[in-house]
Protein backbone atom coordinates (compact mmCIF):
# COMPACT_ATOMS: atom_id res chain seq x y z
CA UNK A 1 0.00 0.00 0.00
CA UNK A 2 2.82 2.31 0.97
CA UNK A 3 4.58 1.50 -2.30
CA UNK A 4 1.44 2.32 -4.31
CA UNK A 5 1.04 5.67 -2.53
CA UNK A 6 4.71 6.50 -3.17
CA UNK A 7 4.37 5.51 -6.82
CA UNK A 8 1.30 7.69 -7.33
CA UNK A 9 3.02 10.60 -5.54
CA UNK A 10 6.06 10.27 -7.79
CA UNK A 11 3.94 10.33 -10.91
CA UNK A 12 2.07 13.34 -9.54
CA UNK A 13 5.43 15.12 -9.15
CA UNK A 14 6.19 14.27 -12.80
CA UNK A 15 2.80 15.66 -13.88
CA UNK A 16 3.42 18.80 -11.82
CA UNK A 17 6.84 19.25 -13.45
CA UNK A 18 5.24 18.72 -16.85
CA UNK A 19 2.64 21.44 -16.20
CA UNK A 20 5.32 23.78 -14.83
CA UNK A 21 7.67 23.32 -17.80
CA UNK A 22 4.80 23.74 -20.27
CA UNK A 23 3.80 26.99 -18.55
CA UNK A 24 7.39 28.29 -18.53
CA UNK A 25 7.81 27.57 -22.24
CA UNK A 26 4.44 29.07 -23.09
CA UNK A 27 5.35 32.21 -21.12
CA UNK A 28 8.81 32.37 -22.73
CA UNK A 29 7.36 32.06 -26.21
CA UNK A 30 4.76 34.73 -25.48
CA UNK A 31 7.47 37.13 -24.33
CA UNK A 32 9.63 36.24 -27.39
CA UNK A 33 12.50 34.90 -25.30
CA UNK A 34 12.36 31.63 -27.23
CA UNK A 35 11.49 31.40 -30.89
CA UNK A 36 8.49 29.08 -31.20
CA UNK A 37 9.92 27.39 -34.30
CA UNK A 38 13.14 26.34 -32.53
CA UNK A 39 11.17 24.94 -29.62
CA UNK A 40 8.75 23.13 -31.89
CA UNK A 41 11.56 21.43 -33.79
CA UNK A 42 13.71 20.39 -30.86
CA UNK A 43 10.88 19.11 -28.69
CA UNK A 44 8.45 17.69 -31.18
CA UNK A 45 7.06 14.34 -30.12
CA UNK A 46 5.24 14.18 -33.45
CA UNK A 47 8.03 14.14 -36.10
CA UNK A 48 5.66 13.38 -39.00
CA UNK A 49 4.51 17.01 -39.07
CA UNK A 50 8.01 18.02 -40.23
CA UNK A 51 7.87 15.88 -43.41
CA UNK A 52 4.33 17.08 -44.07
CA UNK A 53 5.46 20.72 -43.74
CA UNK A 54 8.49 20.20 -46.05
CA UNK A 55 6.24 18.45 -48.60
CA UNK A 56 3.67 21.27 -48.36
CA UNK A 57 6.33 23.91 -49.17
CA UNK A 58 7.59 21.71 -52.03
CA UNK A 59 4.03 21.25 -53.37
CA UNK A 60 3.44 25.02 -53.40
CA UNK A 61 6.72 25.39 -55.31
CA UNK A 62 5.67 22.75 -57.87
CA UNK A 63 2.31 24.52 -58.23
CA UNK A 64 4.22 27.72 -59.07
CA UNK A 65 6.44 25.95 -61.61
CA UNK A 66 9.53 25.45 -59.40
CA UNK A 67 11.54 22.25 -59.07
CA UNK A 68 10.49 19.99 -56.18
CA UNK A 69 12.57 20.43 -53.01
CA UNK A 70 15.10 17.79 -52.03
CA UNK A 71 15.41 16.60 -48.45
CA UNK A 72 18.51 18.12 -46.85
CA UNK A 73 20.56 17.15 -43.81
CA UNK A 74 19.40 20.21 -41.89
CA UNK A 75 17.91 21.12 -38.56
CA UNK A 76 14.41 20.21 -39.65
CA UNK A 77 15.11 16.67 -40.85
CA UNK A 78 17.67 15.88 -38.15
CA UNK A 79 15.26 17.04 -35.45
CA UNK A 80 13.03 14.13 -36.49
CA UNK A 81 15.80 11.69 -35.61
CA UNK A 82 16.54 13.59 -32.40
CA UNK A 83 12.89 13.35 -31.38
CA UNK A 84 12.62 9.63 -32.08
CA UNK A 85 15.75 9.04 -29.98
CA UNK A 86 14.59 11.41 -27.23
CA UNK A 87 10.98 10.29 -26.88
CA UNK A 88 11.12 6.63 -27.85
CA UNK A 89 14.59 5.56 -26.73
CA UNK A 90 16.03 7.89 -24.07
CA UNK A 91 12.76 8.54 -22.23
CA UNK A 92 11.84 4.86 -21.75
CA UNK A 93 15.49 4.04 -20.97
CA UNK A 94 15.73 6.62 -18.16
CA UNK A 95 12.45 5.42 -16.73
CA UNK A 96 13.65 1.81 -16.81
CA UNK A 97 17.02 2.72 -15.27
CA UNK A 98 15.25 4.67 -12.55
CA UNK A 99 13.06 1.71 -11.63
CA UNK A 100 16.12 -0.54 -11.58
CA UNK A 101 18.06 1.84 -9.35
CA UNK A 102 15.08 2.26 -7.02
CA UNK A 103 14.76 -1.50 -6.60
CA UNK A 104 18.34 -1.63 -5.38
CA UNK A 105 17.65 0.89 -2.60
CA UNK A 106 15.97 -0.07 0.64
CA UNK A 107 13.22 2.60 0.54
CA UNK A 108 12.58 2.23 -3.21
CA UNK A 109 13.43 5.90 -3.75
CA UNK A 110 13.51 6.97 -7.38
CA UNK A 111 16.64 8.73 -8.68
CA UNK A 112 16.48 12.06 -10.56
CA UNK A 113 16.69 10.40 -13.98
CA UNK A 114 13.50 8.45 -13.31
CA UNK A 115 11.69 11.79 -13.08
CA UNK A 116 13.37 12.99 -16.25
CA UNK A 117 12.39 9.76 -18.07
CA UNK A 118 8.83 10.07 -16.78
CA UNK A 119 8.71 13.68 -17.96
CA UNK A 120 9.91 12.76 -21.46
CA UNK A 121 7.41 9.89 -21.71
CA UNK A 122 4.65 12.22 -20.51
CA UNK A 123 5.56 14.76 -23.20
CA UNK A 124 5.35 11.99 -25.78
CA UNK A 125 1.94 10.83 -24.56
CA UNK A 126 0.65 14.41 -24.25
CA UNK A 127 0.81 14.94 -28.01
CA UNK A 128 -1.87 12.30 -28.60
CA UNK A 129 -4.91 14.62 -28.26
CA UNK A 130 -3.24 17.11 -30.64
CA UNK A 131 -2.73 14.31 -33.15
CA UNK A 132 -6.33 13.16 -32.84
CA UNK A 133 -7.52 16.73 -33.49
CA UNK A 134 -5.18 16.88 -36.51
CA UNK A 135 -6.77 13.71 -37.87
CA UNK A 136 -10.21 15.32 -37.55
CA UNK A 137 -9.00 18.54 -39.22
CA UNK A 138 -7.48 16.51 -42.07
CA UNK A 139 -10.73 14.62 -42.65
CA UNK A 140 -12.62 17.96 -42.70
CA UNK A 141 -10.19 19.54 -45.16
CA UNK A 142 -10.47 16.42 -47.34
CA UNK A 143 -14.24 16.88 -47.36
CA UNK A 144 -13.86 20.58 -48.22
CA UNK A 145 -11.45 19.86 -51.07
CA UNK A 146 -13.88 17.27 -52.46
CA UNK A 147 -16.65 19.88 -52.38
CA UNK A 148 -14.47 22.45 -54.10
CA UNK A 149 -13.41 19.87 -56.71
CA UNK A 150 -17.08 19.19 -57.38
CA UNK A 151 -17.70 22.90 -57.94
CA UNK A 152 -14.74 23.11 -60.35
CA UNK A 153 -15.98 20.09 -62.28
CA UNK A 154 -19.46 21.56 -62.44
CA UNK A 155 -18.17 24.87 -63.85
CA UNK A 156 -16.03 22.99 -66.36
CA UNK A 157 -18.99 20.93 -67.56
CA UNK A 158 -21.17 24.06 -67.65
CA UNK A 159 -18.56 25.63 -69.93
CA UNK A 160 -18.73 22.57 -72.22
CA UNK A 161 -22.52 22.63 -72.33
CA UNK A 162 -22.48 26.38 -73.01
CA UNK A 163 -20.12 25.89 -75.97
CA UNK A 164 -22.42 23.18 -77.31
CA UNK A 165 -25.34 25.63 -77.13
CA UNK A 166 -23.33 28.36 -78.89
CA UNK A 167 -22.31 25.96 -81.66
CA UNK A 168 -25.83 24.57 -81.93
CA UNK A 169 -26.99 28.07 -82.76
CA UNK A 170 -24.06 28.88 -85.09
CA UNK A 171 -24.10 25.64 -87.08
CA UNK A 172 -27.79 24.61 -86.93
CA UNK A 173 -29.49 27.94 -86.19
CA UNK A 174 -31.19 26.01 -83.41
CA UNK A 175 -31.92 28.53 -80.65
CA UNK A 176 -35.53 29.67 -80.42
CA UNK A 177 -38.17 29.83 -77.71
CA UNK A 178 -38.89 26.10 -78.01
CA UNK A 179 -35.25 25.15 -77.44
CA UNK A 180 -34.67 22.62 -74.66
CA UNK A 181 -31.51 20.97 -73.34
CA UNK A 182 -32.66 17.66 -74.85
CA UNK A 183 -32.20 19.18 -78.33
CA UNK A 184 -28.42 19.03 -77.80
CA UNK A 185 -28.52 15.24 -77.28
CA UNK A 186 -25.64 15.42 -74.81
CA UNK A 187 -24.75 12.19 -73.08
CA UNK A 188 -23.04 11.36 -69.78
CA UNK A 189 -23.67 14.71 -68.15
CA UNK A 190 -22.80 14.65 -64.47
CA UNK A 191 -24.84 17.69 -63.45
CA UNK A 192 -28.39 18.95 -63.93
CA UNK A 193 -29.11 21.83 -66.30
CA UNK A 194 -32.00 24.18 -66.69
CA UNK A 195 -32.61 27.07 -69.09
CA UNK A 196 -33.29 30.31 -67.22
CA UNK A 197 -33.79 32.64 -70.17
CA UNK A 198 -33.79 32.69 -73.94
CA UNK A 199 -33.69 36.10 -75.55
CA UNK A 200 -34.02 35.39 -79.27
CA UNK A 201 -30.84 33.73 -80.55
CA UNK A 202 -28.42 36.20 -79.00
CA UNK A 203 -28.62 35.34 -75.33
CA UNK A 204 -29.26 32.14 -73.42
CA UNK A 205 -28.79 31.80 -69.67
CA UNK A 206 -28.44 28.35 -68.15
CA UNK A 207 -27.96 27.04 -64.62
CA UNK A 208 -26.10 23.94 -63.50
CA UNK A 209 -26.89 22.24 -60.21
CA UNK A 210 -25.38 19.27 -58.42
CA UNK A 211 -27.31 16.33 -56.98
CA UNK A 212 -24.50 15.51 -54.55
CA UNK A 213 -24.09 19.07 -53.21
CA UNK A 214 -27.44 20.84 -53.12
CA UNK A 215 -25.94 24.28 -52.45
CA UNK A 216 -23.70 24.11 -55.52
CA UNK A 217 -24.96 26.16 -58.41
CA UNK A 218 -23.32 27.80 -61.44
CA UNK A 219 -24.86 30.11 -64.01
CA UNK A 220 -23.58 30.94 -67.50
CA UNK A 221 -24.61 33.45 -70.12
CA UNK A 222 -24.20 32.36 -73.73
CA UNK A 223 -23.98 34.89 -76.54
CA UNK A 224 -23.18 32.84 -79.67
CA UNK A 225 -22.47 35.83 -81.88
CA UNK A 226 -20.11 37.62 -79.53
CA UNK A 227 -16.32 37.39 -79.54
CA UNK A 228 -16.56 36.14 -75.99
CA UNK A 229 -19.45 33.73 -76.20
CA UNK A 230 -19.48 32.32 -72.66
CA UNK A 231 -19.56 34.24 -69.41
CA UNK A 232 -19.85 32.57 -66.02
CA UNK A 233 -22.00 34.89 -63.95
CA UNK A 234 -22.09 32.75 -60.79
Amino acid sequence: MKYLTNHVTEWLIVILLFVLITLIFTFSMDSHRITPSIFSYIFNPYPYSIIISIDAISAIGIFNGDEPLTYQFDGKTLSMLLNVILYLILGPYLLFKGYKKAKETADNKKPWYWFLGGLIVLFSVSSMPIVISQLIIFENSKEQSMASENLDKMRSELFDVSFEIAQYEIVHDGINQSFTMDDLELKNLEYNYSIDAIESDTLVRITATSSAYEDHKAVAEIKPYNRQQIKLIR
Partner: protein
Amino acid sequence: MLKENKLLIQSIVIAIVSFMVALYFQKIWLALFLALITAVAFIGRLLSMSKSTLPNKASYRFIYSLFVIMVVFHAISFAHNYGRKDFQKDLLLNIRKTIEKGISKAEIQQKLVYVLQIYHTQEKESIVETAKEIMPENFSGDGIYITELEIREADKPGEKTDDNMNHFYTIDEQQDEIRVYAVSDIALGENPNYKNYDGQTGRFEIMFVLNKEGVDYEVLN
Protein backbone atom coordinates in the same frame (compact mmCIF):
# COMPACT_ATOMS: atom_id res chain seq x y z
CA MET B 1 28.98 -2.78 -19.59
CA LEU B 2 25.44 -3.25 -18.38
CA LYS B 3 23.05 -5.00 -20.75
CA GLU B 4 20.64 -2.04 -20.99
CA ASN B 5 23.45 0.47 -21.62
CA LYS B 6 24.77 -1.70 -24.43
CA LEU B 7 21.25 -1.96 -25.84
CA LEU B 8 20.83 1.84 -25.63
CA ILE B 9 24.05 2.58 -27.50
CA GLN B 10 23.35 -0.09 -30.13
CA SER B 11 19.83 1.24 -30.71
CA ILE B 12 20.94 4.87 -31.01
CA VAL B 13 23.72 3.96 -33.45
CA ILE B 14 21.38 1.81 -35.59
CA ALA B 15 18.72 4.57 -35.58
CA ILE B 16 21.26 7.25 -36.61
CA VAL B 17 22.95 5.18 -39.33
CA SER B 18 19.74 3.84 -40.89
CA PHE B 19 18.12 7.30 -40.78
CA MET B 20 21.12 9.02 -42.38
CA VAL B 21 21.56 6.42 -45.14
CA ALA B 22 17.88 6.51 -46.12
CA LEU B 23 17.83 10.33 -45.99
CA TYR B 24 20.93 10.47 -48.18
CA PHE B 25 18.94 8.59 -50.84
CA GLN B 26 16.02 11.05 -50.40
CA LYS B 27 13.81 8.37 -48.78
CA ILE B 28 12.65 10.47 -45.86
CA TRP B 29 9.69 8.27 -44.95
CA LEU B 30 11.92 5.19 -44.97
CA ALA B 31 14.42 7.09 -42.80
CA LEU B 32 11.75 7.86 -40.23
CA PHE B 33 10.33 4.34 -40.46
CA LEU B 34 13.75 2.76 -39.79
CA ALA B 35 14.37 5.05 -36.82
CA LEU B 36 10.91 4.22 -35.44
CA ILE B 37 11.32 0.48 -35.95
CA THR B 38 14.65 0.63 -34.11
CA ALA B 39 12.95 2.51 -31.27
CA VAL B 40 10.08 0.00 -31.15
CA ALA B 41 12.54 -2.91 -31.05
CA PHE B 42 14.39 -1.10 -28.24
CA ILE B 43 11.18 -0.62 -26.26
CA GLY B 44 10.25 -4.29 -26.79
CA ARG B 45 13.64 -5.46 -25.53
CA LEU B 46 13.44 -3.06 -22.58
CA LEU B 47 10.02 -4.41 -21.65
CA SER B 48 11.25 -7.99 -21.72
CA MET B 49 14.05 -6.96 -19.34
CA SER B 50 11.64 -4.98 -17.13
CA LYS B 51 9.76 -8.02 -15.84
CA SER B 52 12.62 -8.90 -13.49
CA THR B 53 13.64 -5.28 -12.84
CA LEU B 54 10.42 -3.57 -11.85
CA PRO B 55 9.46 -3.78 -8.17
CA ASN B 56 6.06 -5.41 -8.65
CA LYS B 57 3.42 -6.59 -11.14
CA ALA B 58 1.41 -3.35 -10.93
CA SER B 59 4.39 -1.25 -11.99
CA TYR B 60 5.17 -3.67 -14.79
CA ARG B 61 1.58 -3.54 -16.08
CA PHE B 62 1.57 0.25 -15.89
CA ILE B 63 4.86 0.64 -17.78
CA TYR B 64 3.90 -2.08 -20.24
CA SER B 65 0.56 -0.35 -21.02
CA LEU B 66 2.26 3.06 -21.32
CA PHE B 67 4.85 1.83 -23.80
CA VAL B 68 2.31 -0.17 -25.81
CA ILE B 69 0.12 2.97 -26.09
CA MET B 70 3.15 4.96 -27.30
CA VAL B 71 4.05 2.35 -29.91
CA VAL B 72 0.45 1.97 -31.16
CA PHE B 73 0.11 5.77 -31.31
CA HIS B 74 3.23 6.09 -33.43
CA ALA B 75 2.18 3.19 -35.68
CA ILE B 76 -1.20 4.86 -36.33
CA SER B 77 0.40 8.30 -36.81
CA PHE B 78 2.96 6.93 -39.25
CA ALA B 79 0.32 5.04 -41.27
CA HIS B 80 -2.01 8.06 -41.35
CA ASN B 81 0.67 10.56 -42.36
CA TYR B 82 2.25 8.21 -44.89
CA GLY B 83 -1.21 7.70 -46.39
CA ARG B 84 -1.67 11.43 -46.87
CA LYS B 85 1.90 12.24 -47.92
CA ASP B 86 0.91 13.07 -51.50
CA PHE B 87 -2.49 14.54 -50.67
CA GLN B 88 -1.40 18.19 -50.70
CA LYS B 89 0.79 17.83 -53.79
CA ASP B 90 -1.91 15.95 -55.71
CA LEU B 91 -4.52 18.47 -54.64
CA LEU B 92 -2.43 21.44 -55.82
CA LEU B 93 -1.50 19.74 -59.10
CA ASN B 94 -5.15 18.90 -59.66
CA ILE B 95 -6.11 22.53 -59.04
CA ARG B 96 -3.34 23.56 -61.45
CA LYS B 97 -4.72 21.16 -64.09
CA THR B 98 -8.24 22.52 -63.62
CA ILE B 99 -6.95 26.09 -63.97
CA GLU B 100 -4.91 25.28 -67.09
CA LYS B 101 -7.78 23.38 -68.68
CA GLY B 102 -10.12 26.27 -67.88
CA ILE B 103 -7.75 28.90 -69.28
CA SER B 104 -7.15 26.87 -72.47
CA LYS B 105 -10.87 26.42 -72.98
CA ALA B 106 -11.64 30.07 -72.26
CA GLU B 107 -8.89 31.37 -74.50
CA ILE B 108 -8.52 28.92 -77.40
CA GLN B 109 -11.99 27.42 -77.61
CA GLN B 110 -13.73 30.82 -77.53
CA LYS B 111 -11.50 32.10 -80.31
CA LEU B 112 -12.08 29.02 -82.45
CA VAL B 113 -15.84 29.24 -81.92
CA TYR B 114 -15.64 32.86 -83.01
CA VAL B 115 -13.92 31.74 -86.23
CA LEU B 116 -16.64 29.13 -86.71
CA GLN B 117 -19.31 31.80 -86.23
CA ILE B 118 -17.72 34.12 -88.85
CA TYR B 119 -17.34 31.17 -91.24
CA HIS B 120 -21.05 30.35 -90.99
CA THR B 121 -22.57 33.82 -90.77
CA GLN B 122 -20.45 35.30 -93.56
CA GLU B 123 -20.67 32.09 -95.61
CA LYS B 124 -16.92 31.83 -96.09
CA GLU B 125 -15.44 29.08 -98.22
CA SER B 126 -12.75 27.78 -95.92
CA ILE B 127 -12.41 27.48 -92.16
CA VAL B 128 -8.62 27.60 -92.39
CA GLU B 129 -8.70 30.79 -94.46
CA THR B 130 -11.24 32.35 -92.09
CA ALA B 131 -8.99 31.56 -89.13
CA LYS B 132 -5.93 32.99 -90.84
CA GLU B 133 -7.89 36.12 -91.63
CA ILE B 134 -9.38 36.61 -88.15
CA MET B 135 -6.54 35.51 -85.91
CA PRO B 136 -3.29 35.88 -87.88
CA GLU B 137 -1.42 37.01 -84.76
CA ASN B 138 -2.01 33.59 -83.14
CA PHE B 139 -0.30 31.57 -85.88
CA SER B 140 3.46 32.11 -85.76
CA GLY B 141 4.25 30.25 -88.99
CA ASP B 142 6.48 27.64 -87.35
CA GLY B 143 3.70 25.67 -85.67
CA ILE B 144 3.75 27.61 -82.43
CA TYR B 145 0.41 29.02 -81.36
CA ILE B 146 0.75 32.46 -79.78
CA THR B 147 -1.75 32.91 -76.98
CA GLU B 148 -3.52 36.15 -76.13
CA LEU B 149 -1.41 36.37 -72.96
CA GLU B 150 1.78 36.22 -75.02
CA ILE B 151 0.44 38.83 -77.44
CA ARG B 152 -0.38 41.13 -74.51
CA GLU B 153 3.11 40.53 -73.06
CA ALA B 154 4.70 41.44 -76.39
CA ASP B 155 2.84 44.76 -76.21
CA LYS B 156 4.07 45.38 -72.66
CA PRO B 157 7.65 44.07 -72.48
CA GLY B 158 7.96 44.79 -68.75
CA GLU B 159 5.16 42.42 -67.82
CA LYS B 160 6.39 38.86 -68.13
CA THR B 161 4.14 36.22 -66.63
CA ASP B 162 4.87 32.70 -67.81
CA ASP B 163 1.67 30.66 -67.81
CA ASN B 164 3.72 27.43 -67.95
CA MET B 165 1.72 26.21 -70.95
CA ASN B 166 3.13 25.49 -74.40
CA HIS B 167 0.83 25.88 -77.38
CA PHE B 168 1.15 24.50 -80.92
CA TYR B 169 -1.02 24.20 -83.99
CA THR B 170 -1.30 22.14 -87.14
CA ILE B 171 -3.26 23.09 -90.26
CA ASP B 172 -4.72 20.54 -92.63
CA GLU B 173 -5.74 22.48 -95.74
CA GLN B 174 -7.27 19.43 -97.45
CA GLN B 175 -9.48 18.51 -94.51
CA ASP B 176 -10.04 22.23 -93.84
CA GLU B 177 -9.16 21.66 -90.22
CA ILE B 178 -7.04 23.34 -87.53
CA ARG B 179 -5.73 21.62 -84.43
CA VAL B 180 -4.38 23.50 -81.43
CA TYR B 181 -2.42 21.67 -78.72
CA ALA B 182 -1.82 22.96 -75.20
CA VAL B 183 0.79 21.17 -73.09
CA SER B 184 1.45 21.99 -69.46
CA ASP B 185 4.94 22.35 -68.00
CA ILE B 186 3.61 21.55 -64.56
CA ALA B 187 0.29 19.71 -64.37
CA LEU B 188 0.51 15.95 -64.80
CA GLY B 189 -1.77 13.92 -67.05
CA GLU B 190 -3.33 10.52 -66.42
CA ASN B 191 -0.61 8.51 -68.16
CA PRO B 192 2.90 9.17 -66.76
CA ASN B 193 4.50 7.63 -69.89
CA TYR B 194 2.53 9.67 -72.41
CA LYS B 195 4.76 11.39 -74.97
CA ASN B 196 3.60 14.99 -75.18
CA TYR B 197 3.46 17.01 -78.37
CA ASP B 198 6.38 19.18 -77.22
CA GLY B 199 8.65 16.27 -76.24
CA GLN B 200 7.84 16.22 -72.52
CA THR B 201 6.56 13.07 -70.87
CA GLY B 202 3.43 12.56 -68.81
CA ARG B 203 2.23 16.17 -68.75
CA PHE B 204 -1.33 17.36 -69.10
CA GLU B 205 -2.21 17.89 -72.78
CA ILE B 206 -5.40 19.07 -74.44
CA MET B 207 -6.17 19.32 -78.15
CA PHE B 208 -8.77 21.54 -79.82
CA VAL B 209 -10.08 20.76 -83.30
CA LEU B 210 -11.80 23.30 -85.51
CA ASN B 211 -13.56 22.31 -88.72
CA LYS B 212 -16.80 23.37 -90.36
CA GLU B 213 -18.83 21.01 -88.12
CA GLY B 214 -17.70 22.85 -85.03
CA VAL B 215 -15.07 23.09 -82.32
CA ASP B 216 -14.26 20.04 -80.29
CA TYR B 217 -11.62 19.25 -77.72
CA GLU B 218 -10.01 16.16 -76.31
CA VAL B 219 -7.87 15.77 -73.24
CA LEU B 220 -5.02 13.68 -74.64
CA ASN B 221 -3.34 13.18 -71.29
